[in-house]
């Protein structure tokens, strides 16, 4: 890598305030992007992937200052664009363009496509109408349409063709970088493949850097040189595309990759199951943000639990922390016909149900852990929620919850933010991959 990347993002943050009342008092913040750093070399394609709500689109709009970032530096070609005034921002935007997901809503239906594509030229001061037309006609041909399409209107084109036009518009100012937010997600697979190969060809021709945002890892593998995986506003792993896909370091990356359905029926049931949903970005989990769902979350050294067991025990503990109501379990058992009213539900049945709900075996494989768990469950069932909580919290804690891991570079060249990669944290029991 050269020492001077085209775009260098350091500690980028974008928070949205949650306000309440007429005075718009700030009561919280949605931390959509919470301190991400990455570089983009010229001519390179960097993928930004993650599930919905992970902040990838916010990162894109903040990157071009379509929205002002809350904090952080965005250095483009040696200059920090977060400090630009309007005039300099305008000239920056000549060199950085954006492409959106929905090709239908990104064109003015009353303007011919030629006018739409030529508009950036006009805005940036090209007064000569016939020259604009020449440039645009030429460009339309380069994206696989014909010059005569200049005077046609957006509704006359299919989705794939509209996305070609969007590409022409992004290229018309001859930019150095394009930020493309899900550019092929709205297209059918057979059309998707064409747009992808067109983008690759044009990238070579124009020596473009592309920040390619997508939730579709198949497309990302096809398009990108390097990939950054985001989870809840943070980058958890960055690596060269092939390294990332063949040797993912972060458990989240592994789970995400294994969740992609492969078109091979002989390889069913090979996914790593992630339980639960993505937590809210307004109140992200402490430590490693993925610890609430991580299948490889590090167990406490004093217990000898297998990984699944430990995951389920931790699930129960986290649920108790956030206020598990035993009465609900009782009324569930009433609905299931175990007893006639909640008073009559035996405590043992409640405890059994809790173990069933969280997939915890009748007795844990580690006797000491079982003692703590039983004590916690007893307290919970007898109504002493605080005691249950204290007992479980004390015994079942993990480094993943306490400390946020830093992005560490492994010897294989990929960078992951995970305590499992970080050698300074000793992991007692070997963690299985499957």
């Amino acid at each position, binding site marked *: 890598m050269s020492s001077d990347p085209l775009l260098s993002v350091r500690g980028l943050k974008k928070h949205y305030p949650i306000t309440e009342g007429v005075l718009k008092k700030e009561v919280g913040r949605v931390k959509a992007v919470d301190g991400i750093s990455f570089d983009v070399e010229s001519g390179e394609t960097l993928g930004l992937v993650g*599930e919905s709500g992970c902040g990838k689109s916010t990162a894109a709009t903040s990157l071009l200052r379509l929205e002002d970032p809350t904090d952080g530096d965005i250095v483009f070609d040696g200059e920090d664009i977060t400090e630009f005034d309007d005039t300099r921002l305008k000239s920056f935007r000549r060199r950085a363009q954006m492409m959106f997901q929905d090709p239908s809503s990104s064109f003015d239906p009353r303007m011919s496509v030629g006018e739409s594509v030529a508009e950036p030229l006009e805005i940036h001061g090209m007064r000569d109408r016939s020259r604009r037309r020449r440039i645009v006609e030429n460009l339309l041909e380069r994206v*696989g349409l014909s010059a005569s399409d200049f005077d046609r209107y957006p509704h006359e084109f*299919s989705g794939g063709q509209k996305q070609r036009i969007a590409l022409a518009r992004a290229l018309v100012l001859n930019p150095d970088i394009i930020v493309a937010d899900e550019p092929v997600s709205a297209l059918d*697979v057979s*059309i998707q493949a064409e747009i*992808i190969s067109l983008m*690759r060809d044009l990238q070579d021709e124009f020596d473009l850097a592309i920040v390619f945002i997508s939730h579709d890892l198949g497309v990302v593998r096809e398009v990108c040189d390097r990939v950054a995986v985001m989870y809840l506003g943070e980058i958890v792993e960055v690596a060269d595309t092939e390294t990332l896909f063949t040797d993912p370091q972060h458990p989240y990356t592994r789970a995400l990759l294994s969740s992609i359905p492969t078109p091979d029926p002989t390889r069913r049931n090979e996914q790593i199951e992630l339980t639960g949903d993505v937590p809210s970005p307004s109140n992200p989990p402490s430590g490693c943000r993925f610890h609430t769902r991580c299948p490889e979350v590090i167990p406490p050294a004093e217990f000898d639990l297998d990984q699944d067991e430990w995951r389920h025990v931790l699930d129960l503990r986290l649920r108790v922390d956030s206020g598990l109501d035993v009465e609900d379990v009782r009324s*569930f058992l009433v609905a299931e016909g175990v007893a006639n009213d909640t008073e009559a539900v035996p405590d043992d049945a409640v405890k059994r149900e809790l173990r069933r709900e969280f997939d915890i075996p009748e007795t844990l494989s580690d006797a000491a852990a079982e003692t703590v768990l039983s004590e916690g469950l007893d307290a919970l069932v007898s109504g002493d929620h605080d005691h249950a909580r204290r007992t479980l919290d004390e015994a079942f804690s993990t480094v993943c919850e306490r400390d946020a891991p830093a992005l560490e570079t492994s010897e294989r060249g990929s960078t992951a933010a995970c305590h499992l990669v970080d050698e300074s944290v000793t992991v007692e029991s070997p963690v299985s991959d499957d």
Partner: protein
Amino acid sequence: MTDPLLSIRDLHVQFNTDEGTVRAVDGVSFDVARGETVCVVGESGSGKTVACESITKLIPMPPGEIAGGEILFDGEDLTETSEKRLEDIRGGRIAHVFQNPQSALNPVYPVGAQIVEAIRLHRDVSKEAARDRAIDLLDRVGIPEATARIDDYPHEFSGGMKQRVVIAMALAADPDLLIADEPTTALDVTIQAQILRLLRDLQDEFGMSIVFVTHDLGVVAEIADRVVVMYSGKVMETGPVYDVFEQPSHPYTKALLGCLPGQGKSMEPIGGTLPDPKNPPAGCRFHPRCPHATADCRTGDHPEPLDVGTDHEAACVYYGPGYDASVIQSDAVSESTATDGGSEGGTPADASESGGDDR
């Protein structure tokens, strides 16, 4: 296969619009056996959704019209059935799950009330018993603490959880057939994996048949027992999932598999555009984009389905007399993508574009 649960025979569904008749489904036949999962796969405009919504006449009529064919469900022809009887079947013996769980749930009622309504519509039970069953269903579809969540409103659930609620509602009357139309398309991959696993588990538990409509071949490989590949209102290929993926026989199926991104091999765009539904090409619907198209493909009717293996059919002339099917089976699509691709249906530029790229 003896006595399929659902048997669609030569179904024609058309929409009569001011700009002409759109034959969305144009002679489609397939069977669904009991306890089986059949995936109907195709791109947009292939007619997959219309075919499946016609089963219980969910398509708006007019402008929609079932112009011909039979839909035999457990021996009864649903195209002839009275609306009153269909109301019992919908949500009763045949349940639907749609793509967007948000719009399938009423935002102003708690989810429990909506499930209870579905149960009591088809079963003569008391409110209390229905509520207990609703709790049980929510628990079975994997909603934690079902008793606490039953009185929550739809907006209090995440997208994946909402889809679980919709599935619970579909299961309310123990359906024999579940029609799931892109049920995971609006969800993230990790949540999609959860829902697919859930559907498989529920099928084992309840023994229902599933018709699963999707555009995603990855999902098909994950869940299907048998596959129906549709294109432009026609069935191109049907067969057991292992056979279709191991030996895709119709050039369209091959091309569709070839253009999937991220498989670690080079991606081959199909070229051309999807056909105009108002004015589909004569002959084989795929011929303008097909690398193997011959003169026979360009005229007459769409080819008849021909046997290519056990219970495996493809509607392609190459499997008929006078043709050498090995041309399709052996060749790598790459050599000839541009020979005919796009020259009729799409812009000529499309073909040169896709043909020129060999990386």
